[in-house]
């Protein structure tokens, strides 16, 4: 039951193969038995899940079931859940339970989904390996000595480990696409403004975007049908109609032009990674697409620009964690400055502190123009690069990461090396366009991801391209040994 997709579960529930309570119980038991090694959950809300499942079964019995009624899933612990702790992977918020649901959470609740709990992540979504979580690292189900990627490492590992068929996630610089690639699952980062950020704890507001991780593109389309849409509570959310993403999955790729950004196929990418991606591209040619080389000339500027803009925004976003109104407070503060210093000093982990420092420095008087303003100018150039490329072609195809999942501890001592993990994903967040990661091969028995990039609000086109690929290949069907 644990390898079923969302679409399969929806059909099974409708056909009465099993009840929502049965599959929920089954998955909760799996989490109990197996997550000790994986550590993908921070909080398991078993009782609530069973209550939701029971209510879903009752609705179904009453003939009121809809597509999502009774389908199990879980949320990244960055989405606020009314009354349940939302830690964001940090000691700072280990005691914080919001009095509200994130819009995304509310939408899944309303659709009748069953949430099994809250998933592990890098602290405040800062990291590419899920090693910065206060709740401990997450193991990659394919090889438990390896990282699952980050920051949505819990979401990717939970889907790969067969705990849930789908999970919400967020992507600020690659945090959906890279863990999806590392864990051999499917991830989509929608267009900035497509999914509401209300109740999603901010890391870098202008880059953060909610999305999901699933087993395949069809499930991603089903999740997007729930998540996407305008929300008056988020001023950056775009008022744009939401199509039925499942309705265009099977459109033909005949005549589609796929662009390959030449800068992404450089020496940064090992030969076997390159081969896996190239093989996938050949597959697209078989499906009727034509391939064209394009250029993103400013791609190399993406990481430096990102590591100004994201830390700058986070330095302000995380100021509210001050030990005054909620969250961690140090013992026995002597005065207000002591309270600030120790609460934040003890509550935040090293990577978060590093980014706050970088951001505060970049925004300082006298440095603003040289760093923040310059980075925004670079951002504009990068955006223009993507727009220009997407005028020539329909979508772009690229690698997701330079290597497959690396070993735990391998890069923790060198932050720059860790930052370079996101070299192929980060520029898309600066541009605000949608991207996907789908499994396309293996290197050293570890999954490799293919990145698909589309123009603003072209999620339907990406999902279509991903689905057609998955109809023709079986990389997405492979599961880790023992799962």
């Amino acid at each position, binding site marked *: 039951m644990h390898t079923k997709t969302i679409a399969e579960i929806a059909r099974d529930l409708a056909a009465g193969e099993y009840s929502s309570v049965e599959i929920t119980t089954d998955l909760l038991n799996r989490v109990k038995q197996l997550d000790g090694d994986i550590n993908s959950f921070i909080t398991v809300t078993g009782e609530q899940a069973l209550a939701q499942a029971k209510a879903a079964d009752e609705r179904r019995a009453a003939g009121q079931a809809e597509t999502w009624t009774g389908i199990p899933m879980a949320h990244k612990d960055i989405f606020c859940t009314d009354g349940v702790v939302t830690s964001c992977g940090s000691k700072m918020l280990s005691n*914080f339970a919001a009095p509200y649901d994130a819009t995304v959470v509310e939408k899944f609740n309303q659709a009748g989904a069953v949430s099994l709990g809250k998933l592990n992540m890098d602290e405040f979504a800062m990291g590419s390996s899920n090693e910065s979580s206060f709740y401990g690292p997450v193991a990659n189900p394919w090889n438990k000595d390896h990282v699952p990627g980050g920051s949505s490492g819990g979401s990717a590992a939970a889907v790969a480990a067969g705990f849930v068929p789908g999970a919400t996630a967020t992507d600020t610089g690659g945090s959906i696409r890279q863990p999806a690639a590392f864990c051999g699952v499917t991830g989509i980062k929608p267009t900035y403004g497509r999914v509401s*950020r209300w109740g999603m704890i*901010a890391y870098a507001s202008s880059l953060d975007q909610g999305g999901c991780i699933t087993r395949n593109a069809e499930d991603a389309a089903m999740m997007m049908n729930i998540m996407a849409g305008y929300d008056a509570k988020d001023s*950056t959310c775009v008022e744009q109609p939401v199509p039925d993403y499942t309705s265009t999955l099977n459109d033909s790729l005949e005549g589609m032009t796929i662009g390959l950004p030449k800068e992404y196929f450089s020496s940064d990418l090992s030969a076997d990674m390159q081969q896996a991606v190239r093989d996938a591209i050949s597959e697209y040619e078989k499906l009727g697409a034509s391939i064209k080389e394009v250029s993103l000339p400013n791609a190399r500027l993406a990481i430096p620009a990102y590591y100004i803009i994201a830390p700058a*925004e986070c330095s*302000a976003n995380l100021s509210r964690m001050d030990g*005054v109104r909620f969250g961690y407070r140090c013992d026995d503060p002597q005065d207000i400055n002591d309270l600030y210093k120790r609460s934040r000093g003890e509550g935040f982990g090293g990577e978060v502190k590093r980014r706050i420092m970088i951001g505060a420095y970049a925004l300082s008087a006298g440095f603003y123009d040289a760093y923040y303003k310059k980075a925004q100018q670079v951002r504009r150039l990068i955006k223009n690069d993507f727009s220009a490329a997407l005028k020539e072609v329909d979508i772009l195809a690229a690698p997701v990461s330079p290597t497959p999942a690396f070993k735990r501890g391998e890069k923790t001592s060198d932050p720059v090396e860790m930052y370079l993990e996101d070299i192929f994903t980060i520029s898309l967040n600066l541009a605000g366009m949608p991207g996907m990661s789908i499994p396309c091969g293996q290197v050293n028995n570890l999954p490799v991801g293919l990145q698909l990039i589309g123009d603003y609000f072209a999620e339907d086109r990406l999902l279509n391209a991903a689905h057609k690929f998955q109809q023709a290949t079986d990389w997405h069907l492979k599961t880790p040994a023992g799962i």
Partner: protein
Amino acid sequence: MEWEVVIGLEIHAQLATKSKIFSGASTQYGAEANTQACAVDLGLPGVLPVFNEEALRMAVKFGLAIDADIGKKSVFDRKNYFYPDLPKGYQTTQLHHPIVGMGHIDIELDDGSTKRINVTRAHLEEDAGKSVHEGFGSMSGIDLNRAGTPLVEIVSEPEMRSAKEAAAYFRKMHSIVTYLGICDGDLSQGSMRCDCNVSLRPKGQEEFGTRTEIKNVNSFRNVERAIESEIERQMDILEDGGSIVQETRLYDADKNETRSMRSKEVANDYRYFPCPDLLPVIIDDNYIEAVRETLPELPDDKRARFVKDHGLSVNDAAVLASDRELAHYFETVAHSANDYKLAANWVQGDVSAALNRLEISISELAVSAEQLGHILKLIKDNTLNTGGAREVFNALLEGKGDDTVASVDKLVDSLGLKQVSDTGAIEAIVEKVLADNPKLVEGYLNTPEDKRAKAIGPFIGLTRKAAAGVNPQVVMDVLKKKLSELG
């Protein structure tokens, strides 16, 4: 040495929106602590701001009222600093692209002339909460009801040259924002607060001296006194050859002195940057013109109209137009009595005296404008004399009537204040007075013609004593006639 004073003011005015600038929580003053602060005002993780368009409309209205450039694209920035009553650790404000650009207002000087003061800019921002240091032992309490209340910060050019000018500027701004209805203007509740930048320079020197900033002065009187005492302090230092330290100071009204708030001036680095949670605010000419349509008559225009159309003196007009409520009261009285001058005399006389005595505002006065207008009408048609009118006015003040115009008529009756203007009735009384006082009559008749006007006085007094409420003009006419008949 002769010194020139240079003053610039930064005025914070709370906008009279129903809800906060970035949340739906109420802005009402005086609620129990932390009952008007929602998740957004508390700065909880995951919440997002949504800009209240009513605050935008009010700010644009203000900009138009001071003839300013309106920012068609204004941008909210984050101003970063830690303070317990600043929930997010930053204040959302507008740094480089304020909603209101350069404008100006005119202030009236003592000599009757006016002076133009330029307004550099006015921007929208959110207010912080309040720290409460009493009642929590060694701890402090935080009340976030005020957090997120919309403010416009109005920044003047350093163009005021005396404490009096600064106070006049503050008064004029108060008058404008209350006229516009964008701020309740209640200084005692902190609805308007003023930071005063003061410096001195040798007369004739172009370069500014080092300034100090007096924070959060909250009354017209204190603006004047605080600046005066600061000028004095600075002058003493400069005359002794010392130099001014650039710093923030607080005004202690009890001691009438300013004192240093921070021992040394550390330049705060607020690390401003555009708020990524809010989109730039874009408005077009149509929007601006639609707001312009809603502009009321402003104090300067009203004052000019009082002088030009209704013949009031410049001083009377200035006083009556300065306050929107007072001006409205006055105009209602004047309309109803159809006499602007009489209304002006009463509003500046008995009404002002009553307000001062009772320490109330015009909106709390027990005598409505309609009632006073009716009283004045009764003076004009000779039903009441001035004394009688005053008695009715005072009776209403003391709560002896209700709030209807009919109540005025009832009081006139019950207090027996209706003037006797019937010549026949008065003749009878006068004849009796003359018959009862033959010696006075004789004395009068022996008075030379040119002194008789004065000698008639005692007869008027006697007649009015004999019959209260007689119309003095009629009494005079009858007395003159009867006495002249006697010789």
